[in-house]
């Protein structure tokens, strides 16, 4: 066995990056093993995706008649393409925003969290590591949603702006992850161990569901609510991606209140806001999460065992 002498700090920095990456990889393998070992889970996963996607589309069909003419010129002419973007983005955002808290909570109650803290890995590695589950479980839904929409419901897309669309996706995913980290930190910071986590509830369950515009453009909302919708990243991502991907959509022509006020092209507004949100939310998330752990370390709530 290799045991370093007591007190001799191991060469932490040189190996730390390699080790963090290896650890993330271990997380990914772990998630894959779990995913694979619950074979019925895979069946359920398919059933779940199939049913929920179908439900979303059926809902879309139902409001189609009313909503289609409200779409406005900017987002093109195909209502199904409009909601495919909404549903697909929601899958992404829900994962990045709502999952961190749930997974931190679960790992705390299993007693694995404190042992992860009690190891060479960084405190953020578990957060990222748990997200590898999403890549297996949630991100692939994107293809289902797209495939469904295109094959069964007549959605169509244009792919000439794929690269910018990808850029917007990365931006909105990271800003949503920032909010996810803030929400996760409330587990320790506010000592919310059970029930409803307020950040998650507010942003995802309330604002995003009601105002972000998965099924309809924000313009159908009263003006004050449109401004509220401008507070969450979802709104900008929907706007940008629809302009870029939906057939017949325009890159110009302001829709969101902020776009109407600022003298820039709408996509520049979307990009700037999403960039700014990422720049602010990620560091705030990192900071609050570290603070939360410090607080738990002080009042003895970090571990569940005594």
């Amino acid at each position, binding site marked *: 066995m290799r045991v370093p002498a007591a007190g001799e700090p191991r060469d932490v920095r040189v190996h730390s990056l390699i080790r963090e990456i290896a650890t993330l990889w271990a997380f990914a393998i772990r998630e894959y093993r779990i995913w*694979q*070992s*619950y*074979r*019925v*889970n895979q*069946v*359920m996963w398919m059933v779940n995706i199939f049913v929920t996607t179908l439900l979303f589309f059926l809902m879309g069909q139902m409001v189609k008649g009313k909503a289609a003419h409200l779409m406005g010129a900017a987002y093109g002419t195909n209502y199904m393409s409009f909601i495919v973007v909404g549903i697909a983005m929601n899958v992404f955002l829900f994962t990045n925003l709502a999952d961190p808290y749930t997974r931190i909570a679960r790992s705390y109650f299993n007693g694995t969290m404190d042992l992860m803290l009690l190891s060479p890995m960084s405190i953020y590695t578990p957060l990222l590591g748990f997200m590898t589950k999403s890549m297996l479980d949630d991100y692939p839904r994107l293809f289902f949603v797209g495939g469904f929409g295109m094959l069964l419901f007549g959605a169509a897309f244009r792919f000439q702006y794929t690269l910018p669309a990808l850029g917007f996706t990365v931006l909105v995913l990271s800003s949503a992850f920032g909010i996810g980290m803030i929400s996760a930190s409330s587990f320790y910071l506010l000592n919310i161990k059970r029930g409803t986590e307020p950040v998650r509830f507010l942003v995802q369950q309330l604002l995003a569901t009601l105002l972000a515009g998965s099924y309809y453009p924000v313009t159908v909302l009263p003006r004050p609510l449109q401004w509220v919708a401008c507070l969450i990243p979802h709104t900008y991502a929907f706007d940008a991606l629809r302009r870029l991907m939906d057939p017949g959509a325009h890159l110009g022509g302001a829709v969101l209140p902020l776009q109407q006020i600022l003298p820039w092209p709408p996509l520049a507004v979307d990009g700037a806001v999403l960039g700014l949100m990422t720049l602010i939310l990620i560091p705030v998330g990192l900071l609050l999460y570290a603070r939360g752990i410090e607080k738990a370390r002080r009042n003895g*709530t970090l571990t*569940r*065992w*005594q």
Partner: protein
Amino acid sequence: MIRLSGIGKTFPGAELSLRGTKLVTQGPALWVRNLARAVRLTASPGAPVRALEDVTLNIAAGEVFGILGPNGSGKTTLVKIMAGLLRPTEGAGAVAGVEMNHPQAIRRRVSYVSTTGWMGLEWALTAEENIRFFGLLSGMSGALAKTRTDEALRDVGLMQDRHKAVSELSNGMRQRVILARALLLRTPVVLLDEPTVGLDPIHRDQVLALVRETLPARGQTVIVVDHQADALETIVDRAAILAGGRLLRAGTPAELVSGLEGVRVLEMVTRGSGEPRAAIPPQVQEVERIERPGPLGLTQWRLTVADRSDALEAALHWVLSGGGQAVQVAERAPRLADVVTGRLRREVSR
């Protein structure tokens, strides 16, 4: 009070698996499992685990009955079967007059303590509330629940800490909350799976006295599992020894060590001793030697020697023939603990 005949339990690798893979047994997955069974998706069973085999036991009312055996020998499985929490694969039996196939009725007549897992304590409630609410939920009147709770808390020595939330209790205190809760209903049968784990020596003795005196005085039959054979020996009327899912022996502690007549156990601690140089004397039957090279530099010896007056000296000479000093020597009759460990166990199981 408890009668078991030919009880066996095989954990089927298949029950929780679907073509050898694991299932979640909650929510939709449970539903899917049953569905899957119905449509016979379950193809290849995983390796089944034979946890118990042909266990036949009779435990009289008011008896304190111990169960001993190595890790994985089936003790918990047996206790769970007695608690009606697990259905045996084969065999029959009755607990508190209720046949095995009425687990609901059995569960009303037994109290079950396991110190494994979090055991369903409400973490936000105090120790006292946890116990009292359990009484209320079991249909006790408020007044009775209150007096019983106080009594139970006193029985396990938790009066001082009773107003702490479960999340604020130390490990040993929490174990005692679980124990106290099982004292509340005064069921005819009490099943204690490792009740002294995590308790300090004073509370351990208090709990052992509780098992030895208080519970039988209340007319309860107690089954107690514990790895500390020395402690168990002092409190049980009879005990069973399990190994590999089989019942090796059952009887009073004296009966269990019978078959070891004619031997004595010699425990010694030496300092600075090396490998004995002399030939091993005929009086010494078995040698167990543990080196503790660390800061103390001691060697522990446990010898099984013939019950003859020249055995001690012969053994001592032999041990010290490699040099060193004996700092502690104790010669005694074999105990239950000796039956559970070492060669003696192999002898008994023969």
